[in-house]
């Protein structure tokens, strides 16, 4: 009996071995003839994120019939957590879209593939806009981990009908002093256009993703900054930073911004501008796409404002005229089994034609220098403003601690709008310095912890 059991076990193990070895051989054979599926996570960069990207990738499929791409769209709100979890658990896609400010933090986890060799083959740094290339790796590191995909720069939108009526021109709003004088003129004119009272300026307040991005150009253009040049210290508690902040806040306290704006987010402010509530807003290039797209395609081309607006760069401050520049990069997870195919996808998406095509669909600006040669970026003088603005664009420092500092600053500057709203006798330098002192202490505590 025992003998039979022994033979039985032997036969069973032999069969199992044969079955598995057969399987593995079959699967190996299958793989060579089968197509590779690359998984790609993106955020909603356009109205139909998956569809639009699939359209852009049609050309890729013609040249790479063996590579299939499975696109998943993640909400921005959930993306940070999903991507972090993916990085830790290993249950990650091949390619992931990363906000430029996330690159350093996620790279510091060691979760991303080193793409230096591959990117050098397509021209390396010279292929991309210098300002956005800085976000492709951790500052000071020579390992490229995230390839710039598109750029989100900001500029000023103003109503030409309001300006014409009051005799204002583009050059009037080219400096801080001129900008303020123009807003004052609009405020005093008490205009009613198309049945709506026109407030001079619309800016989003605290319930927004852009709390820090909205303040950044004003702080930078006053000569201030968030971190010191070596990124090791906070430079929030400086007179320049206070000056930039004071100017921006004064636009609210002087009554150029209706207080109701301060509880709104960017989308609501955009919507209000499109509906004729404001004379001026600051926004990304996707707003231009919105105002030049038909309502059937989700745009606001039919509005009164869509036919009466122009775009100008940020007004020149005492120390500069930078705009905030963000955007998104593409990275390959270290755990990806399809690294070569994934790189082919990224290479395609960062080549000229797909760059232009994707920008047309998303409204963002390209990250690749030669894409700007396309007439699409120069034939509309308003889009050309963005083409210029990206040259002066400034991104946050690509250091791992920035991802941790930003939520702290978003909190502190969010509270600032609470205080501005409650302040009975204005919100002057004393209050601003107090606030910056607190922000400085908080940022220092993060820097100390992450030394």
């Amino acid at each position, binding site marked *: 009996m025992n003998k039979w059991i022994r033979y039985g076990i032997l036969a069973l193990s032999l069969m199992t071995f044969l079955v598995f070895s057969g399987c593995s051989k079959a699967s190996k054979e299958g793989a060579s003839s089968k197509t590779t599926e690359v998984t790609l996570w993106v955020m909603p960069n356009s109205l139909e994120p998956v569809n639009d990207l699939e359209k852009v990738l049609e050309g890729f499929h013609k040249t790479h019939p063996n590579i299939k791409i499975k696109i998943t769209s993640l909400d921005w709100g959930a993306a940070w957590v999903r991507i972090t979890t993916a990085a830790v658990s290993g249950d990650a896609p091949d390619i992931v879209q990363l906000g430029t400010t996330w690159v350093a933090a996620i790279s510091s986890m060691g979760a991303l593939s080193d793409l230096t060799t591959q990117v050098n083959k397509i021209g390396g740094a010279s292929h991309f806009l210098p300002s956005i290339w800085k976000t492709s790796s951790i500052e000071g590191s020579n390992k490229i981990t995230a390839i710039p995909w598109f750029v989100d720069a900001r500029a000023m939108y103003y109503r030409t009908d309001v300006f014409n009526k009051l005799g204002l021109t583009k050059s009037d709003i080219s400096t801080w002093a001129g900008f303020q004088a123009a807003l004052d003129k609009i405020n005093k004119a008490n205009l009613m256009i198309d049945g709506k009272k026109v407030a001079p300026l619309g800016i989003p307040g605290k319930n927004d993703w852009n709390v820090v991005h909205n303040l950044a150009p004003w702080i930078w253009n006053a000569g201030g900054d968030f971190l010191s040049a070596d990124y090791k210290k906070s430079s929030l508690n400086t007179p320049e930073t206070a000056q930039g902040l004071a100017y921006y806040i004064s636009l609210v306290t002087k009554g150029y911004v209706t207080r109701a704006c301060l509880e709104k987010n960017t989308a609501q402010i955009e919507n209000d501008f499109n509906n004729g509530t404001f004379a001026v807003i600051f926004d990304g290039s996707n707003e231009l796409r919105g105002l030049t797209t038909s309502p059937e395609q989700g745009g606001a081309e039919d509005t009164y404002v869509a036919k009466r607006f122009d775009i100008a760069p940020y007004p020149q401050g005492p120390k500069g005229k930078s705009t905030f520049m963000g955007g998104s990069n593409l990275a390959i997870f270290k755990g990806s089994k399809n690294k070569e195919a994934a790189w082919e996808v990224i290479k395609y998406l960062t080549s000229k034609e797909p760059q232009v095509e994707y920008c047309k669909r998303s409204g963002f600006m390209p990250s690749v220098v030669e894409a700007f040669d396309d007439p699409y970026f120069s034939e509309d003088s308003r889009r050309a403003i963005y083409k210029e603005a990206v040259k002066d664009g400034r991104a946050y420092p690509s250091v791992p601690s920035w991802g941790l500092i930003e939520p702290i600053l978003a909190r502190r500057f969010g509270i600032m*709008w609470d205080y501005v709203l409650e302040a009975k006798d204005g919100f002057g330098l004393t209050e601003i310095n107090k606030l910056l002192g607190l922000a400085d202490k908080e940022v220092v505590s993060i820097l100390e912890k992450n030394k």
Partner: protein
Amino acid sequence: MAIANQRPRNYYYKKYRIAYAFIAPTLIGMIVMHFIPILQGIYMSFLSLNNYTLSQYLGAPMVWFQNYYDVLLNPSSPIRIGLLQSVRNTIIYTVLVTTGQIGLGMIVALMLNLEFPGRSFVRTLFLFSWIVPTYVTGILWGFMWQQSIGIINIILVDWLHLLPTKPFWLVGPNTIWAIIVPTIWRYWPMSMIMLLAGLQNISAELYDAVKIDGANRWTSFWKITWPLLRPVWMIQVLFGMIYNVYSFNIVIMMFGNGAGFPGEWGDLMMTNIFRNSFMRWDFGVGAATSVILLMFMIMAVNIWFRFYKKAEESV
């Protein structure tokens, strides 16, 4: 005792085998979904788990009680930013929401306990706010609280003229009301339905008896209804306390879908822990804060249980 000892050792296992089989799935579920994550959370609270060590996950360096020190005693630790405010808000929020939902639930339950045509229709109608998912509640009320175009200010100021000017609800100290009211609105039907079930169990004879003794409705409520419903509302207090201390969805959705900071008067413990763990990537400290909160909750439930036992004994 002697008889029990004579029984075979596995007598009870055999006798209640079927019961064990029925309990097993829940027990396994509890172990997998609750106990293991709790133990893991406690373990994580001793680790230095941040963006540099996240890829090592549970293998991150052990720092023992450093995270607890940072939460409780270290004034310059980043976790302390806004911590006390969120503790204060959570206490105010929990007390007011729990009281509000039981109070409102009780009033409506008393009304629905009366016989009137269309009673079951009204009862169903009242359950609607409970069906709405919490994140939808957050988004909806976020629109309704808006200062200039929100329906709440339109009703309060334009229609009823209760206030001279339209106040801000989503900015400044009013934020606490902006999160309390929708939570009461979301949860009161649950209290109402449970209290109503309790009310229907109270014998009408008791009310008749006190009526003969000359009691009015007010006295009969406090002498009969309230004490007899004590087990029901005490369970509600327990649920309310737990739900509200761990409240997250309504707050996070109301202030820009997680984009913004709810403000000094809107931040709760859960939103604070979420920010520190998932946005600032300090999972160790986040876990330590959660464990401390868990300890407080265990203490609170214990105190509650003593009162409950007394209440049960008196009934």
